[in-house]
């Protein structure tokens, strides 16, 4: 019988979230931390994000994805963290027992005292957005195309149409063009781009690549290989307008139509998921509702700044250490609710207000001249002005330690919820 490992902490996933969490857990006092990664190397999605724009908050430098990852990989190699590469977790039980497999070790079993979920997310597929037509070769998600071009050394196609103007789609437009392919255009179903303006300018405008807003792909042509797509204008209800249909010849359709936190293992462990974020409910320590199971990074909700992923990972790593070393028990948690023009907030619960807490949230619709506020009951305990807020750009607000208690002490009724809201400054 093979020995069962019993580390203090098992971190599942070694992207920026897992790397940050493992290091933080070690710094916070955990001696035996295991980092489990199914890929051939550390870094998660970062090694394939070869463009820059990472780290302006954490390192005050503008780094490429691989450079950002290398910082953490270097630290992990110096720290006393056991790394298991090529190791796929097959099962996570509610009692935290992990079953995994790798070519080198065969079947591996662990009974960690704490678990940190850092599995990231996967991409939405063509079928989930229900694009009609044939099912030929040549329909690929933007992240998979990015892996092909930047890591595997393969070009998915020569004449590309991109559906979806999120950052991955925009970045891949530039990548395809620079590597000698042609991109006929980027089609976006909404009436505004899904990604950062910086990317619209530097990935599309710089290359005269057209962006067609309020458009979608209504049919994929080609039996064996993509031969073209039909695109159409959409109405206010996002329904295609048949008369506007236009045929675009191409051999590749790249889809950038959304990311889904990858919570299959979380479900197996009985971790309760928030239907709005598609990730686990977490509290201010990034602990899920399953005791001893923490979560950070994109598995909780899709972040856009890797710097925030790192921050959430550090909270989770510290939380796991605190749980293992001090047996931290949660007090009756208070619900954090999205208020006006806020689609969701993470964390969704708070048990302990004695430390600073970062709340990450997204707005429902773009709005100018607003104030983002955190309310304890009815009292604002934090307030920040923004010239402009947009759904693709995640916001962060900080609630200082004891601010909540202060609100309670102000003589009002006992506070039973925290609200994050965005209010207009325009009268």
């Amino acid at each position, binding site marked *: 019988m093979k020995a069962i490992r019993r580390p203090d902490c098992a971190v599942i996933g070694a992207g920026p979230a897992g790397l940050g969490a493992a290091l933080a857990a070690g710094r916070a006092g955990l001696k035996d931390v295991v980092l489990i990664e199914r890929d*051939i*190397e550390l870094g998660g999605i970062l*090694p394939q994000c*070869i*463009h*820059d724009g990472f780290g302006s908050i954490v390192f005050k430098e*503008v780094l*490429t*994805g*691989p*450079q950002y*990852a*290398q910082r953490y*990989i*270097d630290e992990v190699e110096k720290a006393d963290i056991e790394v298991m590469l090529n190791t796929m977790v097959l099962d996570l039980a509610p009692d935290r027992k992990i079953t995994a497999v790798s070519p080198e070790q065969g079947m591996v079993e662990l009974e960690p005292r704490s678990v940190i979920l850092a599995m990231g997310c996967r991409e939405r597929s063509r079928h989930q957005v229900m694009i009609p037509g044939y099912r030929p070769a040549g329909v690929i998600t933007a992240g998979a195309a990015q892996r092909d*071009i*930047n*890591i*595997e*050394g393969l070009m998915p196609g020569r004449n590309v149409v991109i559906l979806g103007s999120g950052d991955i789609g925009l970045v891949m437009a530039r990548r395809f063009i*620079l*590597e000698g392919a042609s991109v006929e255009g980027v089609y976006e179903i909404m009436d505004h781009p899904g990604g*950062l*303006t*910086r990317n*619209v*300018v*530097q990935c599309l*405008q*710089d290359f005269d690549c057209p962006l067609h807003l309020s458009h979608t792909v209504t049919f994929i042509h080609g039996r064996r290989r993509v031969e073209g797509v039909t695109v159409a204008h959409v109405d206010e209800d996002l329904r295609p307008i048949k008369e506007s249909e236009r045929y675009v010849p191409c051999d590749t359709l790249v889809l950038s139509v959304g990311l889904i936190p990858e919570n299959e293992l979380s479900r197996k462990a009985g971790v309760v998921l928030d239907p709005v974020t598609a990730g686990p409910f977490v509290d201010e320590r990034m602990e899920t509702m399953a005791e001893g199971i923490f979560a950070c990074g994109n598995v909780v909700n899709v972040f856009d700044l890797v710097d925030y992923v790192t921050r959430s990972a550090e909270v989770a790593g510290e939380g796991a250490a605190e749980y293992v070393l001090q047996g931290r028990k949660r007090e009756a948690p208070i619900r954090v609710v999205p208020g006006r023009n806020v689609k969701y907030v993470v964390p969704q619960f708070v048990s302990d207000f004695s430390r600073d807490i970062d709340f990450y949230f997204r707005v429902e619709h773009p709005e*100018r001249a607003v104030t983002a506020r955190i309310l304890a009951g009815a009292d604002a305990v934090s307030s920040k002005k*923004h*010239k*402009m*807020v*947009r759904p693709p*750009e995640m916001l962060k607000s900080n609630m200082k330690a004891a601010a909540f208690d202060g609100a309670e002490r102000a003589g009002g009724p006992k506070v039973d919820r925290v609200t994050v809201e965005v209010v207009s400054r325009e009268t």
Partner: protein
Amino acid sequence: MKREHSYTCINCPLSCSLELVEEDGEVVEVRGNDCKTGAKYAVQEFTDPRRVVTTTVTVRGGALPLLPVRSTATIPKERVKDAVAQLAGIVVDAPVSNGQLITSDILGTGVDVISSRDLPRKADGED
């Protein structure tokens, strides 16, 4: 002769639509900006638009077939495509260390191109 140029500001989520008016190459005015940074951005984009170059180069004997590289500073925007094409012809030998110089003074811009990561040699016994 007065001419107008349009830019979208990238500095904050407002994404102001900027109009820059120039006469014979001299900037006359900038409109549409909500703040001073936006005005500066428009001027920069007109007089000297520059970009960071990121791409990959081929690797021999490495754990992966490609190495991500980046320019150490921005280069003129209109030279980016040529820079990438030139880098496409470069082959480096593994192992490569993070920050290793790949090409100096790319296209005579005075800007170097360095490796974005460590890349070890391919492990023995792999195909």
